[in-house]
């Protein structure tokens, strides 16, 4: 198969009531089945429209409001796929596993690959020095059932988000892949995309064509929104990405999509309703055979530029807990440079007109992000401040009326993993035809 039809479902998960003590297994299954009822409708609809594979979100079957103890009734023992198991045909082979049985039957009856995110439990004892005091490991787990209902892949999330106290970190990273008639697939989960291992490694070392990415991603504007980041990751890594996000507007969770290396095929971002959404798109099965991403030297241009003098003082400001160095843009056109530590960011721009009621800054950050996980960032950004007060620069903002006719943004990066993104007024993604990335590392307007 040269192409296939991919589906993702952004699911508004029905959450459990917050409780201090565990519910019964029957009560847990009641909630699970309410969620799978909704997923079943989406799976059947996707299959009727010709989808070969569907991805459902992280925490999509019972949510995330748990302690280590209260999630336990929801967990199942998920065996290694090497056991060659079709739960729909042999449901009691590995104990009581009603969730795997139902997912397997849905895959088999609709002849579609299904990826779902559930919890795995594995007993341990004192011979294991890392065994938790309650005698079991609990893992955030992706499972894939093939179109015959066979358990085909199992992946334990390696880089847990810090609030995921209900789960354990696996000791070792797992590079999980599986082959299909429509290409080779890799799997990881949500926050894993920020890491080298397994996210970059699974693409580089196993040469997958497509990545399945279930997430429960809350958008932290202005810089870390699901759709811009996931789509540019697909482009930068040269693979298809099928990203299914949980939908919960009060948690700012929305933003699912199907992305190829060349383009955003389809995406969904909805902060207005509480509805789920099915997305489908046709993708190339082996995108690497058609195009490899152009190698970009991300600092080549910026290192040749003599820093522009802005003639005004830089000032500090925070974007999601990270302290940036900002410099304010004055005038409808200009050249600016702002630096922090090893990183200098250069901007050349021209606006249609400079408005008195909107303020933009150029910002630089070179440092370790330490909230909800620790990861080192180098960021150059042009952003609109929330108000004309400079102290609001870096706060989320929803609309912009200033229009940029030309722009060129570059920086003296010390990494080749740079992800360019442009978000427009109304949180809309700027499509590829409006900008380009030059081989010398400039993000610039076309035309």
């Amino acid at each position: 198969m040269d192409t296939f039809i991919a589906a993702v479902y952004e699911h508004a998960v029905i959450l459990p009531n917050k409780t201090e003590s565990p519910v019964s297994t029957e009560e847990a299954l009641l909630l699970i089945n309410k969620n799978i009822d909704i997923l079943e409708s989406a799976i059947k609809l996707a299959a009727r429209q010709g989808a070969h594979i569907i991805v459902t979100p992280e925490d999509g079957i019972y949510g995330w409001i748990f302690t280590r103890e209260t999630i336990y009734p929801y967990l199942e023992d998920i065996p290694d796929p090497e056991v060659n198991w079709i739960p729909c045909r042999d449901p009691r082979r590995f104990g009581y596993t009603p969730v795997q049985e139902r997912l397997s039957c849905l895959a088999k009856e609709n002849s579609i690959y299904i990826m779902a995110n559930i919890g795995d439990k594995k007993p341990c004892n004192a011979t294991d020095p890392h065994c938790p005091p309650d005698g079991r490991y609990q893992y955030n787990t992706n499972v894939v059932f093939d179109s015959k209902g066979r358990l085909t892949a199992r992946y334990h999330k390696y880089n847990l988000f810090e609030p995921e106290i209900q789960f354990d970190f696996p000791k070792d990273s797992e590079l999980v892949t599986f082959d299909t008639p429509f290409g080779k697939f890799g799997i990881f989960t949500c926050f894993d995309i920020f890491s080298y291992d397994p996210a970059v490694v699974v693409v580089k070392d196993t040469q997958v064509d497509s990545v399945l990415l279930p997430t429960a991603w809350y958008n932290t504007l202005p810089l870390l929104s699901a759709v811009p980041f996931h789509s540019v990751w697909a482009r930068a890594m040269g693979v298809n990405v099928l990203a299914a996000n949980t939908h919960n507007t009060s948690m700012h969770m929305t933003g699912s999509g199907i992305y190829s290396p060349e383009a955003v095929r389809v995406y969904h971002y909805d902060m207005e309703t509480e509805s789920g959404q099915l997305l489908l798109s046709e993708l190339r099965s082996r995108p690497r055979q058609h195009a490899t991403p152009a190698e970009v030297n991300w600092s080549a241009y910026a290192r040749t530029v003599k820093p522009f003098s802005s003639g005004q003082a830089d000032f500090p400001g925070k974007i999601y807990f990270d302290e940036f160095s900002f410099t304010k843009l004055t005038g409808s056109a200009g050249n600016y440079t702002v630096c922090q530590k090893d990183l200098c960011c250069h901007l050349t721009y021209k606006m249609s007109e400079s408005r008195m009621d909107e303020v933009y800054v150029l910002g630089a950050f070179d440092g370790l992000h330490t909230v909800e996980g620790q990861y080192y960032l180098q960021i150059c950004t042009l952003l609109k401040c929330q108000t004309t007060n400079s102290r609001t620069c870096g706060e989320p903002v929803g609309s912009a009326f200033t229009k940029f006719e030309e722009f060129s943004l570059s920086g003296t990066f010390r990494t080749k993993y740079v992800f360019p993104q442009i978000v427009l007024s109304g949180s809309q993604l700027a499509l590829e035809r409006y900008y380009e990335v030059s081989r010398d590392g400039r993000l610039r307007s076309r035309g």
Partner: protein
Amino acid sequence: GAPLPILVMALYGRVFERDPPRLGQGPGKLQ
């Protein structure tokens, strides 16, 4: 070449070599 109403534009760089050991792992999680 259409003018764009930009909210935010960014070059978002990840420097994996400077990450602390085991990205994302909370202190003492396995102990």
